[in-house]
């Protein structure tokens, strides 16, 4: 299998990348909207385990979360995905997020994990509050990031 990409079109306008942490992995999504940055942070989390391009999207899971602030909402969103991955034995490659007033409604599209084909390198235990930021830059681009424990 070829080495999975460690960033996905991480341009100012959108995309994702992984950033280093001593023991674990940082995930970061960018987007023209906060919701797009959340979608891309989820893609980055998938990329911490497997190549997101390898993930089929034939099954859809709906996710709803609410939190007192946007940073905590990002952690809740990623942790909801961790929970769905663990209990459904699925991986997700495509995401649609909508945000309003501290509430997130999303669809995550993926497929059952295939250990031989996906060959996941790590299991995400949870998203953390370390290096947690949801910010909008002067150029209007949103960034959503945190460290995930693997």
């Amino acid at each position, binding site marked *: 299998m070829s080495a999975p990409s460690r960033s996905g079109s991480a341009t100012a306008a959108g995309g994702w990348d992984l950033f280093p942490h001593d023991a674990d992995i940082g995930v970061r999504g960018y987007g023209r909207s906060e919701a797009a940055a959340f979608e891309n942070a989820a893609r980055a989390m998938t990329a911490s385990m497997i190549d997101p391009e390898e993930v089929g999207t034939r099954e859809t899971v709906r996710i709803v979360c609410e939190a007192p602030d946007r940073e905590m909402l990002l952690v809740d969103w990623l942790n909801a995905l961790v929970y769905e991955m663990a209990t459904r034995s699925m991986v997700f490659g495509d995401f649609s997020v909508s945000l309003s007033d501290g509430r997130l409604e999303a669809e995550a599209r993926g497929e059952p994990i295939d250990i031989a084909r996906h060959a996941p*390198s*790590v299991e995400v235990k949870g998203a953390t509050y*370390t290096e947690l930021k949801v910010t909008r830059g002067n150029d209007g681009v949103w960034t959503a990031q945190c460290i995930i424990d693997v």
Partner: protein
Amino acid sequence: MDRTGLNQIGDYAWRIDPAGEMRAPAIIFADEALIDDMDDKVREQIVNVTTLPGIVGPAYAMPDAHWGYGFPIGGVAAFAPEEGGVISAGGVGFDISCGVRLLATGLSRADIEAVKLNFAHELSRAIPAGVGSKGRIVLDDDELDAMLAGGAGWAVRQGWGRAEDLPRIEENGTMRGAVPEFISAKAHKRQRKEMGTLGSGNHYLEVQEVVQIYDVDVARRFGLDAGRIVAMIHCGSRGLGHQIGTEFLRDMAISAPEHGIRLPDRELACAPIESDLGQRYIGAMRAGINCALANRQILTHLVRKAFAGFFAGADLPVVYDVSHNTCKEEEHVIDGRMRRVFVHRKGATRALGPGASQLPEAFVDCGQPVIIGGSMGTSSFVLVGDARSEAMSLGSACHGAGRAMSRHAAAKLWKGRQVQDALASEGIIVKSPSSRGIAEEAPGAYKNVDAVVEVAEKAGLARRVARLKPVICIKG
């Protein structure tokens, strides 16, 4: 690490005196090389720990300390309930009671070499490892609750092990005070199919050879002989522990202002020990410890079965089982008087020296085995608790090598196949479902474990007893 503000106390410890919002000093155990290599984030994080309410005595960072979340990995700190002391979900971590168990086998290297490839294949088949692997034991809600209350004791009663295993496990195999009702339905669901699984990341089963003995008498007490084979299991509380950590971290972060706690870092989320939330976390966390103890017990059973299939008569007694992500209620002499405190050890091992009252009878006069897992392909160590650690570090020592490089950087530097081939040329077989996972865990991505244990010994935390070299590694 920048040495500004560090006061060297002896050759192997560095003290940061209280300043600003620090309520206590911080002490980092390291020699000059380790302190220079240590991340500045370790200092920032251990200083943050000293700002939490009710801390008694210094906060400590072990020689393998590295950047964690909230607490540094390798962080130790005690809190007193009657002084508003806190319990921190971040100070325990997501993988509650992650730990290491060592089994003796009585076999020789030659016994393993004769069947090595086939045996490695059998172990990789017998031990569910890696993301998406499921255990063969599925528990319903009542059985899960019994497991969460009983730990390894429950597993032995189910037939996964022997009564004589239990005294060779911290807490005699059962963490008292567990309250399974404080565990959510989500955590239950996440664990249902994960009993008897190894997990992934840095978790592994290794077959190792005892290649060096430092203390013949203590090694004999532990059942370790040069040239003999042992099996080491490194894993934790699986999905249940991760979910407990996730949920309580959130609740503690939200409720901190209500408890009058100002968090320098949200990941340090905590609650007063005497609060309702604090008590619920303690009950749930103790159940998480039991989950990890039960899980390592079931894996022990699977490992024994695999050995029995190849080596008639091999019975694999437990040398010891230690946990390195916990918070435990203990008594320590702090500032000249006996205190009842809650000791967080995040990536640190309890290391009780001779005479400690919690020790099993077999170890009372020599101290407990302190099992230090190396990285894949490098040495692991068995140390013995040093009585001096009681006064120096609340009876604590290091837990492993500690990463020197991020996963990201490791995966850029190496390919899994290349790492596997290099280790094979040294006689080490690595089996894993993930090539990238092997690259991320490459031996070069870790600190030199030899240097870490040498400093632990010279600092007086624990003494070396035996060095173990991997022969077969089943990586999650």
